[in-house]
């Protein structure tokens, strides 16, 4: 029985293998000498004594082997030996090694990149302990597809549910933050959280304390705040004396009671929250009537999150919530009709809120997988080319007594070496991709950003990919080598017994490579052409000579009327500023995230059963909006100053709305009810051209504009058109806002051009570059594979070609023969690839927007382009070795045996 001590001793001996080897041998020799001495004493001749001793004691070599086994950890020593041997083999064949390693680097790199993309946007778990247990609960908000809840519903769910170890609620909120009463306010983003929030997410403040239970009991009473770690570090230099100090949020004093730990960034994959305040302070952060957030059951602005009790499944929780929802519906039919409660994991949330991102990530992963396959096929092909040579070596090793198991292990070790070298280099490729992705930044003044990085998760994933690929390309050849028929291989001059049946498999592999390259290129071409096509029309509004900035007077607790007046004066003053040719205020800025939504009931429209209203994206704008942003009113009129609070309520709809609800009628003069079936009537006075709203490439969206004088908004953008460089307006306009109210935080000061570029063009650029790079990599790898196969096939036929030439075949016919074989492969791969590419168009349509794939003509063009490119490049790859084969000197070819 081996004790721990024995193993430690063995391990030490393994790590320092040279020590003791000679000493052991010395000891054995001493044994033999002592034995001989004893025999001599018994009267034998010295020679006889020596022979007898050797006979009795056994061989030194065998004893040494047994000792070595006892001394170290044999498999570890074997591994070290295999690694050394494998390294020597790879170093001796630099061409092979380079092609194999680079191929794999590309394959692993592509996967590393795709995973990093998917991880950052979708997969990375929340920064809390056991994130998988956290579920979001609520009613589906049809507009954003998020799960929302009201405070009253939350309280009922919390009190009645048994499936969760804890249920908490929170609301995101921006606020004007100032470190002291004197300092100017800046925009900050935080979470208003129920009392048990930190408890449920499982995070304790690093400094100070959690909220006390009584601090979440009475509305607006306890003004305490916990700061986010990053914010604390940036804003206060990580000063621990921050505890007990007061800071200002939306103009009110809050006492700092704690700081979150550094690893916790809040419960969102992109936002690194700057502060956490008790949910009971909510009235401080919303312009809505103070009691409403806590009283109104249809005030659904909360996210409810629960930590599943151990042993309870998601399905059980869902079932329980269904009964709770049914009870709530019965008790509160007005507000909770059809109020199904759903549970979602974080991943489901993210996918639900951005299905195209999920599809795009899945597509990139798929493309990367395809690239990896092509890469692995290359390495497998290379290994197959070397198989005959290796077969003799393997046979030799088997013949001198190596175990088959050891030989297989040795070959697998070699594959692993290639894989890890490839992975290492692939991380370089991945890093380049991460740098590329990092160009995607959301232009905001808040810490909201997808953070792409080569973190531990990406590293682990890359290593796993490398391991899988090593198995893919290395296991089959290794096992086959392990079954090598000794005598056949040793006897055959060219190891013919080895790999005679192989070429078929290899041909299929290379054909597959070509096919995959075709698919990758078609996707890349479609994406590129689709983007081009979609972008030619522009966003539908002007992007040049515009400067924007946002202000939110709610952060200073302006009343509705005060805010209204403020924006009016702001726009007025802006128009008078030198250099400004036109200025407007708007609730929503195009390309700035999700627009606000309104619920409307168009008159005379027949809804499908179960639906009685529709949620539509909207903005609130003043009468100068359409001229400033250069968005034409196609019918009717723009807003006018006379569309005031006491006048008839009016709206301007875009073409999609007009087309959808008043098809082939004149939409002007038509009416809809705002905020549901009992809301006020609003008359459509104009139809605006449909533009892009949230992204440069999107399907036409319904959109409604409401006049600023009839629909108050708590935060708005000032948008000014300049006669020259719009950035020159930044300083005077800032000054203007400060003149109106020095405490108002100004945010998002940037030109429309930059907004459009950052929010849309950069993203498209990154996507096109990524997909294009994958296409190029796929083609390059496939070409290498094809070249390798043709060259190999030709070299195997050297003798045959020699004979053919000797009996009269000319070079051209040899060239044709060798090339013909390659051509067949190319044609088969091309055909298969084009057929498989049929799905690319619909896929891209679903990710980006209808019409990405274009019509028949553009599809055919793209197919033709890809097909001719692949054909040309592949022919060149096959031609080079074919030509070399045709240059064979027949006499030499025949003599070479």
């Amino acid at each position, binding site marked *: *029985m081996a*004790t721990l*001590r*024995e193993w430690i*001793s*063995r391990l030490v001996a393994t790590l320092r293998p040279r020590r003791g080897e000679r000493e*052991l041998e*010395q*000891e*054995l020799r*001493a*044994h033999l*000498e*002592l*034995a001989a*001495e*004893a025999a001599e004493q018994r009267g034998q001749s010295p020679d006889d004594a020596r022979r007898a001793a050797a006979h*009795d*004691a*056994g*061989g*030194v070599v*065998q*004893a040494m*082997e*047994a*000792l070595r*086994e*006892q*001394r170290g950890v044999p498999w570890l020593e074997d591994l070290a030996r295999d690694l050394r041997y494998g390294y020597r083999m790879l170093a001796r064949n630099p061409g092979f090694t380079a092609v194999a390693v680079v191929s794999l680097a590309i394959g692993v790199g592509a996967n590393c990149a795709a995973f990093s993309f998917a991880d950052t946007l979708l997969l990375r778990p929340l920064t809390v302990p056991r994130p998988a247990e956290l579920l979001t609960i609520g009613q589906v908000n049809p507009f954003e597809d998020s799960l929302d809840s009201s405070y009253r519903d939350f309280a009922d769910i919390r009190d009645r549910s048994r499936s969760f170890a804890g249920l908490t609620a929170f609301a995101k909120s921006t606020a004007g933050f100032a470190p002291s009463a004197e300092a100017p306010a800046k925009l900050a983003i935080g979470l208003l959280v129920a009392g048990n929030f930190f408890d449920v997410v499982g995070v304790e403040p690093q400094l100070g304390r959690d909220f006390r239970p009584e601090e979440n009991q009475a509305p607006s009473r306890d003004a305490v705040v916990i700061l986010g770690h990053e914010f604390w570090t940036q804003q206060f230099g990580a000063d621990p004396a921050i505890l007990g100090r007061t800071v200002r949020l939306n103009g009110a004093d809050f006492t700092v009671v704690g700081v979150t730990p550094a690893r916790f960034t809040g419960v969102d994959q992109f936002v690194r929250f700057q502060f956490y305040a008790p949910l009971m302070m909510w009235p401080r952060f919303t312009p809505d009537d103070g009691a409403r957030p806590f009283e109104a059951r249809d005030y659904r602005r909360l996210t409810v999150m629960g930590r599943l009790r151990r042993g309870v499944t998601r399905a059980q929780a869902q079932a329980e919530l269904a009964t709770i929802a049914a009870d709530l519906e019965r008790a509160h039919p007005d507000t909770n009709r059809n109020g199904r409660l759903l549970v979602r994991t974080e991943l489901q949330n993210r996918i639900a809120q951005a299905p195209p991102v999920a599809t795009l990530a899945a597509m990139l992963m798929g493309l990367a997988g395809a690239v990896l396959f092509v890469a692995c096929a290359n390495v497998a092909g290379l290994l197959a080319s070397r198989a005959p040579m290796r077969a003799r070596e393997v046979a030799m090793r088997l013949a001198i007594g190596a175990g088959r198991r050891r030989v297989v292990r040795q070959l697998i070790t070699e594959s692993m070496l290639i894989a890890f070298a490839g992975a290492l280099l692939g991380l370089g490729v991945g890093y380049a991709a991460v740098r590329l992705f990092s160009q995607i930044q959301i232009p905001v003044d808040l810490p909201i950003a997808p953070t792409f990085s080569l973190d531990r998760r990406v590293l682990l994933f890359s290593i796993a990919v490398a391991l899988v690929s090593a198995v893919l390309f290395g296991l089959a050849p290794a096992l086959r080598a392990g079954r090598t028929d000794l005598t056949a291989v040793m006897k055959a001059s060219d190891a013919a017994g080895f790999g005679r049946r192989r070429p078929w498999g290899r041909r299929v592999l290379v054909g597959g490579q070509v096919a995959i390259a075709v698919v990758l290129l078609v996707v890349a071409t479609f994406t590129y052409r689709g983007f081009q096509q979609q972008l030619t029309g522009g966003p539908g509004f002007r992007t040049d000579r515009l400067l924007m900035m946002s202000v939110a007077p709610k952060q200073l607790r302006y009343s509705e009327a005060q805010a209204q007046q403020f924006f009016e004066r702001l726009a007025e003053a802006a128009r008078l500023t030198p250099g400004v040719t036109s200025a407007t205020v708007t609730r929503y800025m195009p390309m700035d995230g999700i627009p606000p939504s309104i619920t409307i009931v168009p008159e005379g429209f027949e809804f499908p059963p179960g639906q009685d209203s529709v949620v539509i994206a909207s903005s609130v704008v003043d009468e100068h909006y359409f001229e400033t942003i250069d968005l034409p009113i196609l019918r009717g009129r723009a807003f006018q100053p006379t569309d005031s609070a006491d006048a008839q309520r009016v709206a301007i709809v875009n073409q999609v709305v007009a087309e959808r609800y008043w098809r082939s009628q004149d939409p002007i003069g038509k009416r809809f009810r705002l905020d549901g079936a009992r809301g006020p009537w609003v008359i459509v006075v104009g139809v605006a051209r449909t533009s892009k709203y949230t992204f440069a490439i999107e399907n036409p969206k319904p959109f409604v504009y409401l006049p600023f004088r009839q629909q108050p908004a708590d935060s708005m953008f000032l948008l000014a058109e300049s006669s020259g460089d719009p950035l020159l307006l930044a300083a005077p306009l800032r000054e203007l806002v400060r003149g109106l109210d020095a405490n108002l935080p100004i945010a998002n000061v940037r030109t429309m051009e930059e907004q459009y570029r950052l929010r849309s063009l950069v993203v498209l650029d990154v996507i096109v570059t990524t997909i294009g790079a994958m296409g190029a990599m796929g083609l390059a790898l496939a070409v290498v594979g094809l070249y390798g196969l043709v060259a190999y096939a030709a070299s195997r036929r050297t003798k045959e070609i020699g004979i053919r030439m000797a009996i009269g075949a000319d070079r051209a016919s040899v060239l044709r023969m060798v090339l013909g074989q390659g051509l067949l492969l190319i044609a088969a791969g091309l055909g298969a690839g084009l057929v498989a590419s049929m799905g690319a168009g619909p896929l891209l349509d679903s990710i980006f927007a209808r019409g990405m794939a274009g019509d028949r003509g553009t599809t055919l063009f793209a197919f033709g382009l890809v097909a001719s490119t692949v054909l040309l490049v592949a022919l060149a790859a096959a031609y080079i070795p074919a030509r070399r084969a045709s240059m064979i000197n027949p006499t030499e070819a025949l003599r070479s045996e």
Partner: protein
Amino acid sequence: MPNRDKARSKTDVLQGTLDLMVLQTLATLGSQHGYAIAARLEQVSAGALRLNMGTLYPGLMRLEQRGLIRGDWGVTDTSRKARFYTLTAAGRRELKSERAEWERMTTIMRTLLQEEA
């Protein structure tokens, strides 16, 4: 893998026996080199037990790795360099408990075999 387990337990018994023999030899004769141990065992067994080096030295190494004996280079009476093995305190304890165990086993076996007879 039942077969392998069986094989291993068999060698374990043999190894255990060899261990006990070596420890007892060292306890009786004091510090000894490998050949002397082998010679002693051969003599005691009247030639029935001939250990080759491939069995003896790995056994000695294992005992040394487990800290039961200690090996040091020394010089024999005939001025030859050899590695001498000495029982350690742990070895002495091990010998005691192993011997007790062995005696218990043999008693049981003897009783059992006699009954059978």
